[in-house]
């Protein structure tokens, strides 16, 4: 099993450009999450999904959109990138059930917005 994979690993954008980050998991997990990691702020939840076709806002959703068309994939979109979105983005997944199921994380995508 590859676990959780993220594409791309690195990206540089100019202000106003758009892009999509892809997260894929092969563990048949129902829940998927997108986080951003900034120095001194830990991980903050952007959006999450509790199943195919469903998404919900997290702590910092503004400027991002997501889609979960297939159970194994969770896409994070930036329609008009801003320098404040420079960050490391992590995807995670977990199984359906009680809240203490472990979240498995991808290796991250480092995004720089100039």
């Amino acid at each position, binding site marked *: 099993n590859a676990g*959780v994979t993220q594409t791309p690993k690195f990206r540089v954008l100019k202000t106003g450009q758009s892009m999509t980050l892809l997260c894929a998991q092969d563990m048949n997990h129902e829940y998927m999450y997108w986080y951003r990691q900034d120095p001194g702020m*830990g*991980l903050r939840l952007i959006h999450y999904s509790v199943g195919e076709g469903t998404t919900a806002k997290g702590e910092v959703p503004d400027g991002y959109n997501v889609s979960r068309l297939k159970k194994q994939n969770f896409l994070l979109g930036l329609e008009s990138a801003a320098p404040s979105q420079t960050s490391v983005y992590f995807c995670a997944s977990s199984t359906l059930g009680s*809240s*203490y199921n*472990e*979240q498995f994380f991808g*290796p991250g995508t480092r995004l720089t917005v100039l």
Partner: protein
Amino acid sequence: AQSVTQLDSQVPVFEEAPVELRCNYSSSVSVYLFWYVQYPNQGLQLLLKYLSGSTLVKGINGFEAEFNKSQTSFHLRKPSVHISDTAEYFCAVIRQGAQKLVFGQGTRLTINP
């Protein structure tokens, strides 16, 4: 709402010395508690978790943590650290029945030879 405070942003220690990374949480309801480790240029992986039962929880790589309900703390300890323990450590909390983890700010552990 839950919140997590990691009291030290950086902790430098010498190899083979003991270490404690501090974590305090606030919540008005019952929670589960976690420690995650992030090695350089990698994602997070679970180190240990407290769900219920014994307040002393043992994890991977010789780490352990103690849940203290009265002090709302969940400090991480290791009696003797190794160079390979150099990483960033995150404490996290989740309300029972919820799906969203809340992370602390992280503590960067640096091991000096």
